[in-house]
């Protein structure tokens, strides 16, 4: 009696090869998704502290802003990294930075937004002020479109860093952006803007952006292709 096909060596070899192919493709997909973030270069991020900003700049030292989506799960890793950066900055005595976490919330945001896990963690960070950004107005002002996006302005209001501080999507641990921030804190006299990819949720919908705001819809859309979307 002939052997059923599913019991033949050929069948299992083919099945194994197919499985290997799919497993590799799956792995590549996971990597692709995890490691592709938003690049802030080209987003026309204000290189000087915006004049119309409602946020208050530190007159004596650097101001570090982190824009977050309160319900973005991946941004918890960004907060952790920010905590690492803060720990590194604690040694600075006279040039202590001002830490602002700007939570972009919809105008009709309920308590789930205001009491999210992310914000609870943000509130316990030392010397850190959590600011509500209704409809993401400030975020749009600073051209931040992705949760976890960080801006570093020195006491003169000059932008020195723009980007993310995680190594990949929601991935905790030392990152290029975090290391750059720490370097800036110890040496704030640099003039060149450094940047790193941002991994997180979109802070607001494009339709929420007011026509008079500088972030252009097509710019956001183009950045989505680079990994803004989850």
């Amino acid at each position, binding site marked *: 009696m002939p052997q059923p096909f599913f019991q033949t060596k050929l069948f299992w070899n083919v099945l194994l090869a197919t499985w290997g192919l799919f*497993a590799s493709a*799956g792995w590549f997909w996971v990597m692709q998704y995890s490691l592709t973030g938003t690049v802030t270069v080209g987003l026309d991020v204000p290189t000087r502290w915006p004049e119309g900003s409602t946020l208050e700049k530190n007159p004596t030292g650097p101001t570090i802003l982190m824009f977050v989506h309160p319900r973005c799960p991946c941004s918890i890793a960004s907060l952790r990294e920010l905590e690492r950066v803060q720990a590194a900055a604690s040694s600075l005595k006279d040039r202590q930075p001002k830490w602002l976490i700007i939570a*972009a919330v*919809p105008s009709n945001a309920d308590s789930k937004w205001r009491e999210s896990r992310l914000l609870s963690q943000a509130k316990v960070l030392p010397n850190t002020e959590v600011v509500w950004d209704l409809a993401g107005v400030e975020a749009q002002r600073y051209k931040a479109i992705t949760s976890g996006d960080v801006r570093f302005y020195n006491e003169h209001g000059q932008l020195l860093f723009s980007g993310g501080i995680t190594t990949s999507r929601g*991935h905790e641990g030392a990152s290029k952006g975090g*290391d750059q921030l720490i370097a800036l804190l110890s040496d704030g006299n640099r003039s060149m803007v450094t940047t*790193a*990819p941002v991994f997180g949720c979109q802070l607001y919908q494009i339709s929420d952006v007011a026509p008079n705001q500088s972030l252009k819809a097509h710019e956001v859309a183009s950045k989505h292709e680079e990994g803004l979307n989850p």
Partner: protein
Amino acid sequence: MIDLRAMFGLESTTLSASVKEKLAKHYKTIHVSTDQMFAALMLLQWVGGVALALFITPLTWIGAESQLHPHVMMAVLGGGLLAAMPVLMTIFRPGTLATRMVIACSQVLFSSLLIHLSGGRIETHFHVFGSLAFLAAYRDPRLFPPATLIVAADHLVRGVWWPQSVFGIVTASEWRWLEHAAWVLFENAFLLIIIMQSRKIMLELAIHTDRLEQRESELENAIQEADRANRTKSKFLANMSHEIRTPLNGILGFTEVLIRDRQNIDDEEMEEHLHTIRRSGKHLLTLINDVLDLSKIEAGQMSIQSVLCSPHQIISDTVSVLRVTAAEKGINLDYRWDSPVPDTIKTDPYRLKQLLLNIVGNAVKFTDQGSVLIVSRIVETDSNANLHMEVRDTGIGIAQDKLDAIFKPFVQADDSVTRKYGGTGLGLAISKKIAEALGGNLTVVSRLGQGTVFSIDIAAGEISHPVEERELQHHPGADIKGKTTQSHDLHHLSILVVDDGDTNRKLLRLLLERGGAKVRLAENGEVAVELALQVPFDAILMDMQMPVMDGYSATTRLRERGYQGEIIALTAHAMSGDREKCMQAGCSGYLSKPVDADELYRLLGNLNLKPQDSTSKSSSVEHRESERSEPAVIHSVLPTNDDEIREIVLEFLDTLENKVVEMQLAWDAGDMDALSQLAHWLKGSAGTVGFNCFTAPASELEKVAKVGDTFQASGPLKTICDLKRRVVL
């Protein structure tokens, strides 16, 4: 040289097949059970991954809008894909290397997936180390290279494809990447050592288990053998008990009868009772001797001599002893040599005779019709010489499945055999031991219902001066020494044998008739006196211990009545003074029992007897006289030194045995047609193979058988029988 494979617990070519099999079985069990554990773990990881994704990253957001987070999809699809193949292979191809490999790869890919789903938490990295440790459960070092390579490739490919993700600072991240790999290798090294130790232990365990199983098997066999021996001995004891009880009952019962009713018993009855008692006693003695013999042999106390002796004499003595029994059963017992007969060989004559008596006695016992033939030959090789003897019978035969058992002590081919033929079941066991002790062996081939051939081989040692066949006196009385028979011819004598023992009477008659004497029998002294006074006898062989009238009284009475002939006393009392007592009674000669044939012939020959009555010589005696003029041994006139001719002549001799038996049976049954046909065959065949001596009697037999004359047929048939005993190669 150090066996690295063995050191690391890998299969060595020096291992026995059973150890390899055990080891393979053990590995298979471990592989299959570990496959199953991993299959369960895969499913658990899949569910866990989905739960993790749902808990940590259930949704992704675009402003106020949310949707299912891609991590959840990755957990469902990726986890499902990774779990599916190992589970499938565990079900359909458990325990194979391919399954283990797939599981190993899948497990480290799961680590990668879970690390991503958990947001790269450092704790989740322990999954990699845990997975590698769990893979060690397979005890298969081949699984670590692919698993480790996948871990390394995960980092390497990320570095190539997404360089920005590799720990930010290029130089530092490279070292950390290497550090990661180093830690994995570090763990692998430990796991490898543990695996090798485990494999070595498994190997030792397999060897140890194998030894234990072998010993267990040996023990089991020994127990079974002991049980069997015990059962057999119990059976033997029961048998022995019965065997002993029967003669003992006879002895005690008849002794009791003789004590109580002595006055009421007539002489004949008393004689019968006493005979029964004696017969029973002898039987008991045989039984006890057998048991003692076997005990001695089994205890290694059998002493074996090595002396020069005549094998021919031993064989003829054996045949002499057993011929009476054979004659009583109506079967033919004879022997012949198929090689030059050695004068002497070096062996233990007593043991050889005991062996032959057992085997030939058995053959006679189990043969109810036909014949028993001993065929002997010397087989010489460059280094040694063996005496090969075949005891061929046409008896009941032995079933093939019993052939081995019959040589075991206390075993007979069948319980029914014991019931029908008696015996202790020790004879063959003793015989085999004796044959082995004599430097040879005892084997058997048999066909149920057709007969048996026992082959005895013993070392012949130094063979001295083979006797030329023409010198060999092989005639109907060949069991008597040739020289004696030649020099003391009894053909003209008329002898009365007086003995109360039926067997003794028959034996003496046989011996005397072979010498050519005419023999009459009397069972006691009274009958002897009566007979001797009526018929003149040349000599009377008088047993001195007899019922009714003993030998002393009978001799005295005969002398008183004027009997002048020779009276030779036969007595079992080999005491000094016994001879004188006999002489006083009037005996002229003296023979002690058991009667030695040589002595008997010598004594009768020395008496210088003259025939009492020449008219009493029958025609058959004359016939014998005519036979005496022929050479005692008849050779084929063909050149039997030619192997092929020799083979043909031997074949004829074998066939002749059966044909003559058939002739006798046909004559007994009065089947003259069959007798005629057989005679016709003999007439033609015998001449062809160079035995012309058969032609005339066969021709005569055919003639008289054709006319249906049974009486006339006996003459030539007897001649043929006599001739048959004399023919040799």
